[in-house]
């Protein structure tokens, strides 16, 4: 390969391989004295390269320490993803905190700490707020007016839930087997029924009783609500 014929290729290759900017002296130093191109020739070559890169993903720029080839701004949103960090895992403490907020909302940090038996770091709360899975829904009217946390629509969307009722009840959670079964099958409504089916006579009876209670409460409240409705 004759360097004068392929000056442009050599300059391009050197700039790409160097991983840093090269000034004209550094580019000249690539060549033997006999074949060393003049600086104005190198400058010309660099301009030609810059011209050829028009409309490409890279560009030749002159910076303080010389010339370098870099990714064009237009491409950087995509190229930047090369360095996107692999998401890690959330800590157990965070998961427990999130679960308690989901099941016991509105709830204060102190109440979460009481149930978990350990303190909840501010980091965890901040992470959950930043992720927009929880939000402050109010303040408890006690000294210090601690924030009350609740879950968000984003939380439901992320976990593919229509409403919090799609989550298994605590009773179902207690039974590990039914939980496992439930999580393998997508339909939570069916599963809740199955869980009841599977847990024996006593539980079925208890559930029935509970259902009756709920129905009663609902009925009386319903009446109240009906009145409101009519009023509206």
């Amino acid at each position, binding site marked *: 390969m004759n360097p004068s014929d392929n000056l442009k290729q050599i300059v391009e290759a050197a700039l790409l391989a160097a991983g840093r900017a090269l000034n004209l002296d550094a580019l000249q130093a690539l060549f033997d004295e006999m074949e060393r191109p003049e600086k104005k020739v190198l400058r010309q070559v660099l301009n030609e390269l810059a011209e050829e890169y028009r409309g490409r993903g890279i560009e030749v720029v002159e910076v303080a320490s010389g010339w370098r*080839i870099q*990714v064009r701004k237009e491409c950087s949103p995509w190229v930047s993803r090369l360095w996107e960090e692999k998401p890690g895992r959330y800590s157990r403490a965070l998961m427990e905190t999130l679960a308690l907020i989901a099941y016991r909302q*509105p709830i204060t940090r102190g109440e979460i700490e009481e*149930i978990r038996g350990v303190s909840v770091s501010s980091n965890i709360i901040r992470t959950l707020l930043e992720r927009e899975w929880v939000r402050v829904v109010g303040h408890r009217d006690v000294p210090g007016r601690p924030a009350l946390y609740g879950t968000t629509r984003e939380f439901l969307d992320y976990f593919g839930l229509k409403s919090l009722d799609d*989550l298994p009840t605590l009773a179902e959670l207690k039974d590990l087997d039914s939980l496992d079964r439930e999580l393998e099958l997508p339909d939570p409504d069916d599963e809740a029924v199955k869980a009841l089916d599977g847990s024996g006579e006593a539980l079925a009876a208890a559930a029935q009783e509970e259902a009756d209670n709920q129905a009663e409460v609902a009925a009386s409240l319903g009446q109240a609500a009906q009145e*409101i409705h009519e009023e509206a």
Partner: protein
Amino acid sequence: MSEAAEKITGEQEPVPQQQEMPFAVVEGEPQYTLPKDLYIPPDALEVFLDAFEGPLDLLLYLIRRQNLDILDIPLAQITAQYMEYIEMMRELRLELAAEYLVMAAMLAEIKSRMLLPRPQEEEEEGEDPRAELIRRLQEYERFKQAAEDLHGLPQVGRDVFPVQVEVPHRQVERKPPDVDLKELLLALRDVLKRADMFSRHHVTREPLSLRERMSRVLEAVRPDRFTDFHELFDITEGRDGVVVTFMAILELLKQTLIEMVQAENFGPIHVKAATCHESQ
């Protein structure tokens, strides 16, 4: 029998007194001194210092130098030359790997077997005493060649160079971890187990939508101004939705998270978040 050989074999525990051994036996005559017309190229000593990768490599060199095929090894000749080299290395006090001596022994043994009239049974087996050596030489030569071929491939940093350009407008996002619903539920189960929450019946039966609604109502009301009670209901949700909202309001009242005010009988009901009783 040679003097040197006698000396070695005569000892109970033969010590390698190798400088007295014949470096070669040519046509039955043991040779003690290096012939002046040795086939050693002038730079051979240099070559010896670092060029050979063991006895097989040396043997290959000796064979190839004469443009011979491995399959037609002139064993006597090659053995003699090999011994000469070994002797020379010893004289130069080069550190001699044990493998070279093992090979010398092997060559000597093969040679002697070839000299013997082959017994009948061995003839039937048809096993050339050289067969094993030839197999090893061939095998070694293949990989010696493979190593050269490998060395000839374009290597990063020697023949080809990696490229790396700057990304001046790098915008790296940190992706949040993914969470599986199951992980969330398992975490809850564990924390509740620890807190023994399962034993509390009213907790286990509470519909979660009520709690969700409590959050929503609480968010809708402000501590600094009143909200119309009706505004908390979304009649498009239908009867069930209204009931849940109502229950949520009752629960919030019970927990004193909200306050309700009715200025006059049948007047509009107003709701606000519990007033601030700052202790500070």
